[in-house]
């Protein structure tokens, strides 16, 4: 038995005054500085174009094309004014919100139901289904835009919300099914069985028990499918006219043959990014988890 220290009742600070040698601390702070340095480089690369877009949105036509670029200028809201007054941005915004909002909801509901069915009931060939879902995502949109245009014409759906809602619902479905299947699987069956024993119907189990547990997954999915539908251009421009025109069409319209309205284009880009960025910020905690599609369980 060797000499052992007594149980120490000493106060903190007595021994900690003795600090690690300089080399050790320096190496560590060098490492921290390197991390922050790289983060700064990444931030500049990923944020500068967005910054430039935001800045341009508030520039006058003379400032926005100025060369060398001007960094200090008198900000103006003219671009936004023009968007609203002569480019119909407000009604397009309303259309976008209705179309994208509804289709996101529908895709969520249908997709979650399908995911629930796939995950809970033993359906053969899950691998094939996953593959098929992926295929829908791979379709070049240009393949289906002309048939859909004719379909919409035939059934009087052209330039209505319904056709775009249907298309965006389809676009979102594969994603929802894929992500939600994983979240359904992670809900212990025993919880649902307990609810059944406690006298819930199957539907009540779904809405009262399972759905709340799937919320993180739903949140992540909402952001992604909302984003894709919100930013979709080809169908929006082909399947609508004036009544159901959405924001991406307005955005494309800012490229005028006599000069890109750089300010207008930036303003509409900024305007459009706001809802998505807000949504993503709200759900970003869940985004990380929701996006691994069950390949990793986080």
């Amino acid at each position, binding site marked *: *038995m*060797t*000499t*052992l*220290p*007594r*149980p*120490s*009742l*000493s106060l*903190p600070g*007595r*021994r*900690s005054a*003795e*600090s*690690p*040698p300089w*080399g*050790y601390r320096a190496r*560590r702070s060098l490492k921290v500085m390197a991390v922050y340095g790289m983060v700064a480089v990444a931030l500049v690369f990923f944020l500068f174009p967005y910054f430039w877009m935001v800045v341009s949105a508030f520039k006058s036509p003379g400032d926005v094309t100025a060369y060398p670029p001007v960094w200090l200028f008198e900000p103006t809201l003219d671009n936004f004014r023009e968007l609203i007054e002569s480019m119909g941005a407000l009604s397009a915004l309303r259309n976008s919100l209705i179309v994208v909002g509804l289709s996101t909801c529908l895709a969520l509901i249908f997709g979650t139901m399908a995911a629930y069915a796939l995950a809970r009931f033993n359906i053969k060939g899950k691998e094939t289904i996953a593959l098929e879902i992926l295929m829908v995502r791979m379709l070049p949109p240009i393949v289906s835009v002309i048939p859909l245009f004719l379909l919409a014409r035939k059934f009087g759906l052209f330039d209505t919300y319904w056709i775009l809602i249907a298309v965006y619902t389809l676009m979102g479905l594969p994603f929802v099914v894929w992500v939600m299947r994983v979240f359904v699987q992670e809900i212990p069956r025993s919880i649902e069985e307990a609810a059944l024993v406690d006298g819930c119907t199957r539907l009540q189990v779904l809405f009262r028990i399972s759905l709340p547990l799937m919320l993180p997954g739903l949140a992540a999915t909402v952001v992604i499918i909302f984003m894709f539908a919100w930013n979709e251009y080809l169908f929006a421009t082909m399947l609508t006219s004036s009544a159901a025109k959405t924001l991406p069409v307005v955005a494309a319209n800012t490229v005028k043959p006599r000069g890109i309205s750089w300010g207008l284009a930036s303003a509409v880009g900024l305007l459009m990014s706001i809802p998505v960025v807000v949504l993503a910020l709200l759900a970003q905690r869940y985004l990380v988890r929701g996006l691994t599609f069950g390949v990793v369980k986080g």
Partner: protein
Amino acid sequence: MGVRIEGLWKLFGGHTAVRDVSVEIEDGEFFVLLGPSGCGKTTTLRMIAGLENLSAGRVFFDDEDVTFFEPRRRDIAMVFQDYGLYPHLSVVDNIMFPLKVAGVPKDERRRRAGEVAERLEISSLLKRKPPQISGGEKQRVALARALVRNPKVFLMDEPLSNLDAKLRVSMRTEIKRLVSDAGITTIYVTHDQIEAMALATRIAVMNQGEMVQVGNPLEIYDRPATRFVASFIGSPPMNMFDGRLNSAEELEVVPRFLGEAVSRARVRQFYEQAPSIGGVVVGVRPEHLRLGASVGASNAVVELVEPLGQSTNVYLRADATPFVAVTNRTTLQVGDRVDVQVDESNIHVMDKETGRNFAVSPDDGLGA
């Protein structure tokens, strides 16, 4: 190889996880760090391994200061609570991994891995991958991987806590056998006092970041230095009662028979150690309570009897205070009145505030 740590501190933000821990572990010792979860034992182990930066202090292997060595330069092996196997590698590749990164030739790697696998009886699993084998098997693989490289120090972080009760006991004996065969210095972290008692040549009990007592298992059991150690070790735990040292003459405690069992001389001895302290905690281990048949002076009533086969837990109440005693097989029944007796030497009197055990003298088991 001996391990010496001096004044180890670990601060996480404002929280002090490890507070000025120093200890010297001898070559070949099986040293257990014991304590409840969050007491800093795992952090201490990880600082020894080099996985955690330390806020202050020094770590020596023999006489070499390894405080700022990266883990890979310390020549140690470690078994993790969740085994830390590489999920993408087969069992044999897992075992060979340390040899591979050390640049051992392939044939040599295979030979050594085969030997270790043989010794741990996992030769039939070599081709499988970790997700395909059971917890006990993973545990063996992790041990094999640690043993294959003949490390200087063997670190184990709660290696048995993910196993079921039965397997835990059998693995426990196996680990003890393997490690003592190899004669490697081992530092072992656990919160299970039985495991600690069974394995250790010496135990260090930790609480709230501090090392409160170091000693061999029986010392720790018989002479707990503090109220914490006393209550942490033993099952069922030590009975504890609030009491007062009113004067050099009197130890007041309910149930009264306890106070009565302590001689005046001994009360004075306690009182001299801390004359100003009134509140004390009086402790007695359940197996030190002797239950006699009631001969008039019965002082307790039986409330519940738990026959465990080997022994029996008898739950009693005296002076409206409940406590438990452990006896051999007994015919006692609920409602029986019994006479409870205890030896003065088995009664611990501890400072209510600091927790210090007056029954253990400072140089008693705690070294200098």
